[in-house]
């Protein structure tokens, strides 16, 4: 029997079919949202292989919890929350394994971002999209995972401070402080990268 063509079926109907055990319908959902789910994992983990593995784990969890999907948000948003939670668990696990965390030292010493001079020129002005993305890629990799996570949840997931605090199990003050640091550090890194590339 030929496989059913799901390419024109909407997400809601695919979820319904997948709940009945139709893995072809679920495969179509994976195909539609895989880039977004992988991108979120990569933004948070900064490691290609880890992001692939974790995003696949998120899909398996999604399949197992399909009955919990109420349709209050879109299926893509629901899946994104699953992958974010898995990434947070993974980052916590990695942090526990690090005995001498540079991030902890950096955060404890604190205050660097408060004294940084204000950058009057937009470091990304005039850049092409690809180049801009490459620079942000490099700058993001230099942030600690706590700062990066707050930035990802706020800028990409569009969470409010309160939601981020709940997700990361910290205070709203910590969220504000980490977000401020992440933005200022990112601005400084992007400026440095601009200087580097103009020297070459």
């Amino acid at each position: 029997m030929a496989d059913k063509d799901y390419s024109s079926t909407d997400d809601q109907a695919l979820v319904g079919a997948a709940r009945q055990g139709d893995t072809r319908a679920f495969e179509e959902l994976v195909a539609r949202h895989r880039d977004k789910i992988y991108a979120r994992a990569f933004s948070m983990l900064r490691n290609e292989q880890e992001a692939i593995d974790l995003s696949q784990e998120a899909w398996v969890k999604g399949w197992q919890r399909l009955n919990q999907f109420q349709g209050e948000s879109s299926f893509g948003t629901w899946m994104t929350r699953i992958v974010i939670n898995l990434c947070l668990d993974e980052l916590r696990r990695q942090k526990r394994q690090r005995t001498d965390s540079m991030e902890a030292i950096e955060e404890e010493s604190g205050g660097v971002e408060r004294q940084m001079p204000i950058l009057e020129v937009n470091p990304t002005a005039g850049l092409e999209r690809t180049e801009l993305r490459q620079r942000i890629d490099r700058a993001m990799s230099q942030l600690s995972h706590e700062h990066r996570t707050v930035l990802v949840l706020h800028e990409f997931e569009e969470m409010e401070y309160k939601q981020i605090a709940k997700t990361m199990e910290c205070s709203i003050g910590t969220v504000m402080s980490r977000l401020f640091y992440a933005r200022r550090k990112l601005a400084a890194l992007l400026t440095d990268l601009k200087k580097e590339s103009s020297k070459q």
Partner: protein
Amino acid sequence: MNYEAQLKLQSFLDGELPENDAREVAAWIARDKQAAGLLAELRHTREAVTGYEEGIRLPESREFYWSKIQREIDRARPATAPAAPAFSLWAYLRRLAVPATALALIAIAGLVANRGVHGGGAVGVTEISVSDTEALTYRDFSADTTLVWLSYPADNEVAQNTPSDTLP
């Protein structure tokens, strides 16, 4: 500018301030160049990262990526109990074949015996043994009656020595 003021500026940018506070901060930015500069920097950074994820693509083919997910899904599925065999007409007919064959042979034997003695006045007696079935046919031409005596299966040895699933 103190740290609290810096964070307030950021909250203003993110729309996290109550209306009254937001109005105050807007007025402050209008008269303070440094505050306006910091706000511009924070806004540039926010704009720079917007759309960053949209350019990220999964570095694996659809089939390869899906294959691992499918494997994990299949592994997590509970083992299904073997289903009860569905009704099969063929199996049903096969079960009927032995007694039906026996009965058919008996009927044929009856006919053969009938022909062999046709026209005579004597009583014809024929005995046929088929497998575990025994049958005796009596034909009384004077009375124009045929009697078939079946000893299938209860009277024979096989039936007595094996558990029977035949009709009584």
